[in-house]
């Protein structure tokens, strides 16, 4: 398979063109917005917890961005639904990268991580879970 086909493999294109969990949740329990000024990506993440106040019942995202960021965030919503905030707060980024399953250059890695970073910030705000790695002194992603 050529490098080209790897990067835009079918599953990436499928998530990009038919994103899962796309939309917004009114009255979400957790919410954050992230931007990557490098390429203009923006993502908003909304989370609703189940009755135990910890399990992620619903998660949605909205925003604009490149195929990699949109597909990665779409995959992320599938990955974290049904897990607890405590678990997702410390989710290893390698797990998401494995799911994405394509070689990423350092620049594109930032695109791929935008959704996860923003989700972790949302959970941190709502539940006090740890901030994502390296967020202290972050200069590439701006989180509002």
């Amino acid at each position, binding site marked *: 398979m*050529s*490098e*080209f086909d790897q*990067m*835009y493999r079918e599953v990436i*294109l499928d998530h*990009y*063109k038919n994103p899962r969990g796309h939309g917004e949740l009114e009255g979400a329990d957790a919410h954050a917005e992230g931007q990557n*000024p*490098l*390429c*203009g*990506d*923006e993502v908003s993440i909304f989370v609703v917890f189940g009755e135990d106040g910890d399990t992620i019942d619903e998660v949605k995202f909205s925003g*604009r*961005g*490149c*195929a*990699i960021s949109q597909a990665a965030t779409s995959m992320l919503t599938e990955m974290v639904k049904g897990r607890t905030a405590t678990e997702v707060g410390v989710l290893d980024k390698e797990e998401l990268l494995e799911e994405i399953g394509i070689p990423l250059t350092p620049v*594109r890695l930032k*695109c791929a991580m935008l959704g996860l970073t923003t989700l972790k910030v949302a959970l941190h705000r709502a539940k006090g879970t740890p901030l994502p790695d390296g967020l202290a002194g972050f200069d590439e992603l701006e989180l509002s």
Partner: protein
Amino acid sequence: MAVTAQTKLNAEKLRADFPIFDQEIRGKRLAYLDSAVSSHKPRQVLDKLRTFYETQYANVHRGVYTLSEVATAEYEGAREKVARLVNAPEPRELIFTHGATESINLVAYAWGLDNLGPGDVVLVTELEHHSNFVPWQYIAKRTGATFKAIPLDEHGELKLDSLEELARGGNIKVVANNLVSNALGTINPVERLTAWAHEQGAIMVVDAAQAAPHHEIDVQQLDCDFLAFSSHKMCGPTSVGALWGRAELLESMAPFNLGGHMIRSVKLEETTWGQLPYKFEAGTQPIAEAVGFGAAVDYVTDVGIAAIEEHERELLVYALERLADVPGFIGYGPPPERRAGIISFNIEGIHPHDVAQVLDMEGVAIRAGHHCCQPLMSKLGVAATNRASFYLYTIPDEIDRLVEGLHKTHKLLGQ
């Protein structure tokens, strides 16, 4: 500036001067359409750097020994070449800096801090690169002056009919504009703007970083007060650039960087400043880079700046014609006659990062992003655009490969 008849340039032939094109990238010949951000370097410049370091190098203006004199002559010779390029009345008005950004910061700090205050207006445009926008916004804030921007019309051209309204907002003291927009290629009416600025009693600061490599510049004809440009966009080394300024203004200004070499005498009580241009060249300068800049000026003037501009205009017309057939193509910028060799565009529904990535797989290098022009991007209502830009070594085949790559991008990622 003397107008000489230029012969048409042969880009295929000139390309052989640029070693970067000898290699393959991702198994393909390099199609380099990102010269607006930085140009490649010809052998003539690379050879000069090597010769200079190997046989002529020493620190300048300091030694009494022969080698230092040779190096100084090379460095000052480069200053004369760069000064001649923009038809500066005197070489001492040409300050070597680390690039156009530092040149503009020099003016913003050294002139702005002492000459701006409440009630004054610093006027930029919505088309500026951040380098001619952020320093002015910052210095205006520091001094209590008002910061305003001349708006753009839908083609990315300045709305000069807004000037009178803007002038009512206070005492216009600085007008800062790029001669050519790096994001859209717009060639701005700097001569007209300068005349208006002077009527207001303002100084005119021209960012020529994008113009100097492609467009003949005559500071005496423009009648501006300061002009900033960089070496690396015009076949020269990085980390060196120039500021041309009127001698009387430069002489009246406080220094910018302070330290060695820029002084007349240093005493415990007081230090006095050296003559132009040294007053603004503190510390050891990028000496070899400046010499390389001089070699780059020789190279582009041998090719002919007018011939470069004409070559790029032909490529622009050809590219716009071919790009019109790409599904979803949205172009930005003025018509070719008022535009340099830059095409800013989007493919409907596809993020520029994806476009640039797919093109990279085809060996085609373009830029995707905000091009350091976020105010312009928000005016256009986009986060980013793709940008293809040309130079003297650009050939039609590279444009064909761009167009083919865009068709492929649309097929793959189009909705």
